[in-house]
C-alpha cells in the first residue's frame, strides 16, 4: 500500500568527500570568527553590530549557527567525542545547519542594507560573514546527502530541459528530500542518572530557546531566531537526536513530564519585568484553549468554528462574580468557586449548543458552530440594558475585574520568592500553568481510554463506529461539552489577567489570538490529536504576529505566507501524530475509500447519526 519515495545519497556539488569536509569546517570556523568583527558602522541598526571584539545582537545567532555547523561537520567526520551528535550518520543535518546559518546571516545583512539605505552601510566584517556562510553551505552540499532520485520526479516537459530546469529540479529534490530510512546507531548504554541528566539538559536548552524567543527585543532578532531555530530543529530531526531523546523521554516518562513543567515553571524566574511575562501568560491561555479545542477537533473530529465563545462564557461568568464594580451581579466569589461556576456555565452552553448541532455531520456542524460563535458575541453586545436585559454592559464589557487573592496570596502585587521578584503577571502565569497541566492531564487520560478510542473511531468512520456499538451522538456531545468546560475554565483566569471582559475578544477571526480561527490554526499547524502540537502551535501563532509588528502593513501578509509555507512543507503539523505521519508521507496516494453514506435519497431516514 505504501510506496516510499525513491531516494539516493549523493552530493549536490561533486567534490571529493575530504575536500568537502575541509571546506565546510573552514567555512564554519571562519563564520564564527566573522561574528567578532563589525558588520556595520552605525548603531542605528538594533543590537549594536559595530563592535570588533565580541558579537552582539543578530551576530550571536550566526555565531551559534556557525558553532553547530562546525560541530555537526566534525561529528559526521567521526571526530572522537562528537559522534553522538549524529546517531543516523547522515550529512543532511550539516546541510540544514549551514543553510540556516546562511539564511540568518544574509537576512541580517539584507535587513541592515534595507534599513540604513544601501550596501554601503556594511563593514567588511559583514561581507566576510556572507562569504564564509556561503562557503560552509557549498561545502555541506558537496557532502553526500539524502535526497530524491531524479527519476522519482514527474517529468514536466519543458521545465525539465534546459540548464535552469535541471537546476530547479536539483534544488527541488534536495529541498524536498523524501524520506531515507536511516536506522539509529545503537545507543551507548548509560546509567539511569545520566539519562535523566540528559533529559534535564534537553529541557533546559528548550526553556532557554523559548525564553530567548519571547525575550527578543526587536522584530529582526525574532525573525533571525525563527529562521535559525527552524533549520536547527530540522537538523536535529535528521541527525536522529530527536528520536534519541524521544526514546529517553519514553523510558523516563514521568520524569520527562515533570521536567517539562519544571522548565515551564522556571520561566517567570528568569524575568525581572512584566513585559515578557504578559506575553507568556497570554501564550499559555491561548495554548490551553487550543488543547481544549484539540479534544473536539483532534480526537472526535468535530470541526468547531465557534470555540472561542466558550472561553468567553467562562470569562464573562468569572467577571460577573468577581466583585467588579461594573458587574451587574453584586457578588464576590472566591476564585475556586468562580472557576467552577465559569466551567459549569461553559458546560451548560456546550450542551445547549451541542445537543441540536451534533446530529449534523461534517460541513453542517462547522457552519452551525460558526453561527453560534457569532451569536454569543452579538448577544453579549446586546445584553446592555437597552436592547436587552442588563447583564454584560454591552460593547463596554466588564472592566475593573479585581486581582485574584488565593489563600491570602495576592496576585496583583509583586512577591519575592527564591531571590527573584514575581511580578503580577508571573503570578498569573504560574496559576495558568496549573490549569494547563490539568488540561494536559485531562487530554491524555481521556484520549487514552475507552472514551478516547470511541472519539477517534467516530472521527475515522462514524458509520462503522455506530455499527460497533458506539452511541456517536452521546460521545460527540461528551467531547463537545468537555472541550467547552476546559475553555470555560481557562476563561476564568483570562478575565483576571486582562482585567476586563469585552465582546471583541471573542470573535471568529481577528488580529489578536485567541480567536476561533487562530485556535483552529494552532491545532492544525501544531499537530492534530497531539499534546505538544497545539501548545507549540499556539506559541508560534502568538509570537509571530506579536514580533512581526515591525513589518507594519506587511505583517498579516508575512504571517499568511509563513502559514502557507508551513502547511506546504508539513501538512500533518509540526508535531505529527504518529497516525498522520504515515498518512501524509510514506504513502504515494491517499487511498481512503469514500466513507460517507450515499447522499440521502428521498424517503431515506438515516438513523442514529
Amino acid at each position, binding site marked *: *500500500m*505504501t510506496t516510499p519515495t525513491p531516494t539516493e545519497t549523493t552530493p549536490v556539488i561533486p567534490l571529493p568527500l575530504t575536500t568537502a569536509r575541509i571546506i565546510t569546517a573552514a567555512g564554519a570556523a571562519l563564520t564564527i570568527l566573522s561574528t567578532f568583527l563589525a558588520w556595520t558602522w552605525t548603531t542605528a541598526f538594533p543590537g549594536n553590530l559595530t563592535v570588533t571584539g565580541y558579537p552582539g545582537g543578530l551576530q550571536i545567532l550566526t555565531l551559534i549557527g556557525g558553532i553547530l555547523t562546525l560541530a555537526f561537520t566534525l561529528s559526521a567526520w567521526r571526530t572522537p567525542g562528537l559522534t553522538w551528535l549524529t546517531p543516523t550518520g547522515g550529512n543532511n543535518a550539516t546541510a540544514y545547519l549551514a543553510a540556516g546559518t546562511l539564511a540568518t546571516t544574509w537576512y541580517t545583512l539584507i535587513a541592515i542594507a534595507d534599513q540604513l539605505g544601501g550596501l554601503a552601510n556594511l563593514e567588511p566584517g559583514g561581507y566576510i560573514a556572507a562569504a564564509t556562510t556561503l562557503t560552509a553551505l557549498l561545502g555541506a552540499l558537496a557532502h553526500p546527502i539524502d535526497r530524491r532520485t531524479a527519476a522519482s520526479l514527474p517529468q514536466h516537459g519543458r521545465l525539465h530541459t534546459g540548464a535552469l530546469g535541471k537546476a530547479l529540479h536539483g534544488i527541488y529534490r534536495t529541498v524536498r528530500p523524501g524520506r531515507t530510512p536511516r536506522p539509529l546507531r545503537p545507543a551507548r548504554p548509560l546509567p539511569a542518572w545520566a539519562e535523566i541528566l540528559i533529559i534535564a539538559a534537553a529541557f533546559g536548552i528548550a526553556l532557554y530557546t523559548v525564553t530567548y524567543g519571547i525575550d527578543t527585543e526587536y522584530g529582526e532578532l525574532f525573525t533571525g531566531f525563527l529562521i535559525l531555530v527552524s533549520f536547527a530543529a530540522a537538523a536535529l530531526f535528521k541527525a536522529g537526536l530527536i528520536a534519541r531523546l524521544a526514546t529517553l523521554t519514553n523510558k523516563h516518562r514521568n520524569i520527562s513530564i515533570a521536567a517539562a513543567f519544571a522548565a515551564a515553571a522556571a520561566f517567570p524566574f528568569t524575568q525581572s519585568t512584566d513585559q515578557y511575562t504578559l506575553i507568556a501568560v497570554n501564550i499559555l491561555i491561548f495554548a490551553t484553549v487550543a488543547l481544549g479545542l484539540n479534544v473536539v477537533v483532534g480526537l472526535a473530529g468535530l470541526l468547531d468554528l465557534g470555540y472561542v465563545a466558550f472561553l468567553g462564557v467562562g470569562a464573562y461568568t468569572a467577571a460577573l462574580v468577581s466583585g467588579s464594580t461594573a458587574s451587574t451581579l453584586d457578588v464576590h466569589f472566591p476564585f475556586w468557586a468562580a472557576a467552577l461556576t465559569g466551567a459549569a456555565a461553559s458546560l451548560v452552553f456546550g450542551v445547549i449548543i451541542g445537543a441540536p448541532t451534533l446530529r449534523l455531520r461534517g460541513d453542517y456542524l462547522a457552519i452551525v458552530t460558526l453561527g453560534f460563535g457569532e451569536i454569543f458575541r452579538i448577544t453579549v453586545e446586546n445584553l446592555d440594558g437597552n436592547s436587552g436585559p442588563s447583564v454584560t454592559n454591552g460593547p463596554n464589557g466588564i472592566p475593573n475585574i479585581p486581582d485574584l487573592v488565593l489563600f491570602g496570596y495576592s496576585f496583583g502585587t509583586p512577591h519575592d520568592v527564591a531571590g527573584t521578584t514575581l511580578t503580577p503577571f508571573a503570578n498569573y502565569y504560574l496559576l495558568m500553568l496549573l490549569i494547563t497541566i490539568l488540561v494536559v*492531564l*485531562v487530554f491524555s*487520560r*481521556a484520549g*487514552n*481510554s*475507552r*472514551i*478516547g*478510542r*470511541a472519539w*477517534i*473511531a467516530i472521527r*475515522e*468512520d462514524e*458509520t*462503522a*463506529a*455506530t*455499527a*460497533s*456499538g*458506539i*452511541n*456517536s451522538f452521546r460521545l460527540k456531545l*461528551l467531547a463537545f461539552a*468537555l472541550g467547552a468546560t476546559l475553555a470555560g475554565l481557562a476563561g476564568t483566569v483570562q478575565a483576571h489577567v486582562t482585567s476586563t471582559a469585552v465582546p471583541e475578544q471573542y470573535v471568529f477571526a481577528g488580529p489578536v489570538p485567541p480567536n476561533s480561527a487562530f485556535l483552529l490554526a494552532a491545532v492544525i499547524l501544531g499537530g492534530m490529536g497531539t499534546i505538544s502540537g497545539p501548545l507549540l502551535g499556539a506559541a508560534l501563532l502568538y509570537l509571530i504576529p506579536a514580533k512581526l509588528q515591525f513589518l507594519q502593513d506587511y505583517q498579516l501578509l508575512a504571517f499568511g505566507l509563513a502559514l502557507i509555507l508551513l502547511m506546504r512543507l508539513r501538512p500533518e503539523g509540526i508535531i505529527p501524530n504518529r*497516525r*498522520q505521519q*504515515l*498518512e501524509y508521507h510514506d504513502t504515494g496516494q491517499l487511498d*481512503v*475509500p469514500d*466513507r460517507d*453514506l*450515499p447522499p440521502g*435519497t*428521498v*424517503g*431515506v*431516514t*438515516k*438513523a*442514529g447519526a
Partner: protein
Amino acid sequence: MTTTTTTETPVLTATGVTMRFGGLTAVRAVDLSVHPHEIVGLIGPNGAGKTTFFNCLTGLYVPTSGKVAYKNTTLPPKPHLVAKAGIARTFQNIRLFANMTVLENVLVGHHTRTKEGLFAALLRGPAFHRAEKASTQRAQELLEFTGLTPKADHLARNLPYGEQRKLEIARALAGDPGLLLLDEPTAGMNPQETRATQQLVFAIRDQGTAVLVIEHDMRFIFNLCDRVAVLVQGEKLTEGTTDAVQADERVIAAYLGTPFEGAPGADEIAEVEAAEAAETAGAAENAETATPPDTVARPEDNQ
C-alpha cells in the same frame, strides 16, 4: 453441521422488512429468521438488495416497514443499540478505522461490553485499569483467533486486503455478538484466503455465534451454509437447504447462470440449460440471467 432446532429462540427474526428509496423498492416484505448455531447464506444477483437488507437489520437504514427482532425482542433502528443487543456486522467495502492500530480497532469493537466512562478515565482508579486490561486481553484473544497477532501494532490502513477483512471480523466479534452479519467476506480474496475464511466462519459458529452471510462465491456458500435464502429484485424468491436451493429452477433462472462446479466445457451446457429453464419457467423477467455468479464488478457499493 447442526440442524435447525425450531425450539430454540431465533437470534434473528425479520418480518416484512421493506425499504423504499423514493420510487425504488430495494427490499420488499422480506421475512427471514436465523437460529443459534446456524450459518445462513443470503444470495442474489447484483442490486438484489442484500446489502440494503443488512442495513435495515442493523439500523443503518430505518426500514420503510417491517420489524427486526433479536431473540424475540424488537430492535429499535439505531445501529449502536442493535450492536449492543448482539448483532454485529462487517461491510461490503471494508470500513475500518484506518488510522488506528489493529489492536485499537478490536478494542473499539469491545466498546459496548465495557462501561468505563469519562470520569473513570480521568481518575484512573484500579477498576479502570482492570477493565482496560480485560479489554486488551479479549482483543488479543480475538487477534489470535483471526491470526492477526503479529500485526497488532500496525495501522489498519497498512494491512493487505485479506487481513483487513479478517480485522473487520475480529472487530465485529469483539462485541460478543449472538449473530454475525458478513457482507461478502471473501470478495477480492484468492482461493487459499477464501478457504481460510471458510474455516474461520465455521470456528465462529462453533463458538456459539450464528452467522448470516452474503456472498457471490457459490462454492463458498454451498460449502458453508446450513440454509440459503435467495433475494431477487428485493423479494425473497425462496429459502431452503443448499441442495434444495441449488435444485430450484427459479433460482437457476434468476441467478445461477453457470453451475457452481464449473467443470471445463460445462459452461456452454449450463448456459443453454439456463436459457431453457428461463423459457420454461416463463420467468425471463430480468436480464440478470446472463450475469455470471462469480463476478465481483458491482456498479455501486453502498456499504
